[in-house]
C-alpha cells in the first residue's frame, strides 16, 4: 500500500535483507546474544563490517545497553536475542523501555513457521508475552513482509511517544531469500501520531501563563525525548518568562541545574522549594511529564489551587490521573516553539511585581536548604553517601560525563547531588525502577561515546543483578566506572522498613557480599575501596585517572536515609525533612499512605 512503488531486489537470505534494512535505518551497533534460532543472522553479521555487535552476558543487559545507547544519542537502540529464553530474558528491559519511552527495536529469533504452536524446542509465544511489554510487536510469517516490517518497526519506535518495538523472526524467514526495498516515505496506514500542537490551546496556555501570579514550569522526559533543541528552547522560554522551573527524575538535564531559576527535582524525594512551589502555584505548565504518582503524592491534595496546562505527545497521558484545564497534544519541541512565539505575540503585560513576590516566597523555601547534610571530615569518619556523590560531581566537572544509576537510595542521591547542565547525560530507570539497569545502560552509553566518562552510580545490591556484564566491559574495553555507594543494605527497602514498618529489617540486609575489589580484578577491571572520609577523594581521582573499567567500592553510612521525603499518601506540603531539620517535621505517614507504597 506504499505510495511509492519500488522495485524489489531479491536478497540471498532474510538475514541479509535484515542487515541491509538495519543499515538503511542508521544502525551501527547491535547489542545481542546468540542462539539456535538466530544463527543465520549471526552468520550474516560475521560476514560484514558496518554493524558492530556487542556481545552481552545476559539478554536483559542487551536491552538496557540499547536503552543507554538510545538515551545518550537520541537514536533507536537495537537488540538481537534468540527465541524462547533469549526472548523471555529480554522482557524486563522491554518493559523498562516502555515505561520510560525509550526507542528500541528488539529482534527475536523464533522457531521455524511450520513448528510454531508445537511446543518446539526453545519456542515461546514471544509476541503474546511481549504484547503489553512493547509499544508494538510483529511476527513475520512471510518473507515478502520482512523488510517492510523491519522499516516499520524503526518508524514506530522513533516517532510519536517513543518506545520499544519487537520483531519476532522465525528461522525459515531468516534463511529463505527475501525481497529488499528501501524505507518508504509514505505515511503509515493506521499509525499517525500527532506532533503539532493545536494553536488555540497554545493561545489559551499563554493567556493563563501571562496572567499568572505564582507560575511554575514542570518539565519531564518528554522534553529530553524531543531532542536537545527542545531543552534549549525550554531554557529560553523559562528565562524569557522569569518563571521557576523544576524537573522530574526523567527530565533532569533538560534545564541547567546551575540556573538561578531552577528549583531542583520535584516529587517524593524532591526539594522543599520544588514541591512547595508545585503545591502553591496558581498556574502550572507541565511539559512532557505525566503526573506520575511519585510526583503528585496524594492526588486529591495535589496542587489544589492551580490551573494546569499539560503538554504531552501521548493524548492518553492527559487527564489520566490529574484533570487539567488546558490539554496540548504535541511534541515538546513543537510545543515550546509555539509557546515562545505566542508569548512574544500576546499583548497582555506580565505582572512582574507578583512574580517577584512569588520568587521571594520561593527563596524562603530555598533558604531551608532541604538537601543539607553534615559530613564529619575528621580522619576515620564514615563517608556520607551524599558527600560521596557531591565529591564525585566536583571531580568530574569540566569532563564530558554521563551518569547512569541502579535503583534505590543511591539513585535518589545521584539525582539530588549530581547536577546536570545538558540533556541526554543522565539515564536512570524511572518508570519501572529496575535494579540492574545502571551497569548495562552505562555499557551502552560508553559504546556510543567511547571517549566520554561514563559512571554508574550504584548500590551494592543492584550491582549484583547484572554483575556478569563486567565481562562485556572487559571484552570490549569499555572503561565504565561503577561507583558503588555500599551501605550493606537494600537501603531504600531498609528506609521504608524504618519509617513504615517499625524498623523490622526483614530481608533487606545485603548478607554475604562479595569483595568488590577482588571481584573487579577477577573480571580484568580495577577494584578500589574507600573506607573512611580521607580515602574518598583519592579513590575518586584514581578511578577517573584509569582508562579501564573500575569498581569503586565506597563504604558509606549504613543508616543514612533519603530526605526530603513525601511519604506515600501525603500531600506535598507534608514533607519529611532530614535529621538536619529536627523540629520542622509534621507527622508523616498516614494509614492510607501505607497501602499506597
Amino acid at each position, binding site marked *: 500500500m506504499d505510495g511509492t512503488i519500488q522495485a524489489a531486489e531479491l536478497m540471498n537470505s532474510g538475514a541479509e535483507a535484515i542487515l541491509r534494512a538495519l543499515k538503511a535505518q542508521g544502525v551501527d551497533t547491535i547489542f545481542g546474544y546468540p542462539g539456535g534460532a538466530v544463527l543465520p543472522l549471526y552468520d550474516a553479521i560475521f560476514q560484514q563490517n558496518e554493524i558492530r555487535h556487542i556481545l552481552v552476558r545476559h539478554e536483559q543487559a542487551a536491552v538496557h545497553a540499547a536503552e543507554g545507547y538510545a538515551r545518550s544519542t537520541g537514536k533507536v537502540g537495537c537488540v538481537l536475542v534468540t527465541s524462547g529464553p533469549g526472548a523471555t530474558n529480554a522482557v524486563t528491559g522491554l518493559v523498562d523501555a516502555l515505561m520510560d519511552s525509550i526507542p528500541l527495536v528488539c529482534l527475536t529469533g523464533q522457531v521455524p513457521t511450520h513448528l510454531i504452536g508445537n511446543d518446539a524446542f526453545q519456542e515461546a509465544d514471544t509476541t503474546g508475552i511481549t504484547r503489553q511489554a512493547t509499544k508494538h510487536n510483529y511476527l513475520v510469517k512471510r518473507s515478502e513482509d520482512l523488510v517492510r516490517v523491519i522499516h516499520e518497526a524503526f518508524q514506530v519506535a522513533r516517532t510519536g511517544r517513543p518506545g520499544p518495538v519487537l520483531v519476532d523472526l522465525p528461522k525459515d524467514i531468516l534463511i529463505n531469500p527475501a525481497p529488499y526495498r528501501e524505507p518508504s516515505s509514505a505515511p503509515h496506514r*493506521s499509525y499517525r501520531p500527532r506532533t503539532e500542537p493545536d494553536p488555540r490551546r497554545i493561545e489559551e496556555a499563554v493567556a493563563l501563563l501571562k496572567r499568572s501570579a505564582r507560575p511554575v514550569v514542570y518539565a519531564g522526559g518528554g522534553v529530553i525525548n524531543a531532542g536537545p533543541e527542545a531543552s534549549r528552547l525550554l531554557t529560553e522560554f523559562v528565562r524569557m518568562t522569569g518563571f521557576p522551573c523544576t524537573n522530574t527524575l526523567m527530565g533532569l538535564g533538560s534545564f541547567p541545574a546551575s540556573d538561578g531559576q531552577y528549583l531542583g527535582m520535584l516529587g517524593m524525594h524532591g526539594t522543599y522549594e520544588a514541591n512547595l512551589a508545585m503545591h502553591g502555584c496558581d498556574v502550572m505548565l507541565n511539559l512532557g511529564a505525566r503526573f506520575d504518582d511519585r510526583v503528585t503524592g496524594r492526588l486529591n491534595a495535589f496542587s489544589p489551587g492551580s490551573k494546569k496546562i499539560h503538554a504531552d505527545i501521548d493524548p492518553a497521558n492527559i487527564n489520566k490521573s490529574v484533570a487539567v484545564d488546558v490539554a496540548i497534544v504535541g511534541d515538546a519541541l513543537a510545543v515550546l516553539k509555539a509557546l515562545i512565539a505566542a508569548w512574544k505575540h500576546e499583548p497582555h503585560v506580565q505582572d512582574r511585581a507578583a512574580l517577584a513576590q512569588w520568587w521571594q516566597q520561593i527563596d524562603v523555601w530555598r533558604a531551608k536548604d532541604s538537601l543539607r547534610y553534615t559530613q564529619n571530615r575528621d580522619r576515620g569518619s564514615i563517608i556520607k553517601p551524599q558527600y560521596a556523590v557531591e565529591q564525585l560531581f566536583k571531580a568530574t566537572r569540566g569532563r564530558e560525563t554521563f551518569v547512569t544509576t541502579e535503583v534505590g537510595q543511591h539513585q535518589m542521591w545521584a539525582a539530588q547531588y549530581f547536577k546536570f547542565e545538558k540533556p541526554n547525560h543522565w539515564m536512570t530507570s524511572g518508570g519501572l525502577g529496575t535494579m540492574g539497569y545502571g551497569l548495562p545502560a552505562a555499557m551502552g552509553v560508553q559504546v556510543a561515546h567511547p571517549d566520554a566518562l561514563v559512571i554508574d552510580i550504584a548500590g551494592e545490591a543492584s550491582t549484583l543483578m547484572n554483575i556478569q556484564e563486567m565481562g562485556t566491559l572487559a571484552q570490549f574495553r569499555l572503561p565504565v566506572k561503577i561507583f558503588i555507594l555500599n551501605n550493606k543494605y537494600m537501603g531504600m527497602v531498609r528506609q521504608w522498613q524504618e519509617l513504615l514498618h517499625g524498623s523490622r529489617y526483614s530481608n533487606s540486609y545485603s548478607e554475604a557480599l562479595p569483595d568488590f575489589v577482588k571481584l573487579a580484578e577477577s573480571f580484568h577491571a580495577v577494584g578500589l575501596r574507600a573506607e573512611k572520609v580521607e580515602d574518598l577523594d583519592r579513590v575518586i581521582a584514581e578511578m577517573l585517572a584509569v582508562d579501564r573499567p573500575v569498581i569503586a567500592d565506597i563504604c558509606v553510612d549504613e543508616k543514612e536515609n533519603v530526605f526530603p521525603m513525601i511519604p506515600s499518601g501525603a500531600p506535598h506540603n507534608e514533607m519529611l525533612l532530614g535529621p538536619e531539620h529536627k523540629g520542622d517535621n509534621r507527622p508523616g505517614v498516614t494509614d492510607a499512605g501505607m497501602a499506597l507504597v
Partner: protein
Amino acid sequence: MPGQNLRAATISVLVENESGVLARVIGLFSGRGYNIDSLTVAPVERDGSKSRITIVTQGTEMVIEQIKAQLDRLVPVYKVLDLSEGPHLSRELALIKVLGTGEKRAEALRLADAFRARVIDATTESFTFELTGATDKLDAFLDLMRPVGLAEVSRTGVAAIARGMKTIG
C-alpha cells in the same frame, strides 16, 4: 473529584485486520482494569483488510476518555469513535433455546410472537428463537423466558452505528 459518575459507552474501533489485534485490545482492557460489557469483531472491508470492533464499557468520564485515548494509540487502530456521544443504533442478536411442553410451551410461543422473535428450529419439546434488538430488549425477553423453560442462550454482543449521515471513515 469531578466526573465520578459512571456512564456506559459504546465505542467503535476500526482496526487493521491483522493477527493479534483483538488480543491487543483485550489486553489493554484487562491490563488497565477497564470493564468490557460486550465486545464484537468482524471484518468490514471487501478485501478483509479492516475489522470493526464494537465495545460496550462503563466508567467515569475520565476513564472513558482514557479508554478512547489508549485505543487510539495502538498502532493498528485507524479510528476510534464514541457512539454514545451522539444518536446511534445498537443491535444484538440472540439465539434462545426453550425446553418444555404443554401450557409453558404455548406461552413461550406467545411471548416470542409479542417480541417478534423468529422460530428457527423446533422439536416437540423445544423451540429455538432468533431475536434481534437492543440489549435491553433481549434482556427483557430472556427474563420472560426464564419461567417458561429457558435452557440456553447464545448472544452476539452489540453491533452499533451512528444515526444519520455520520460515518466512522
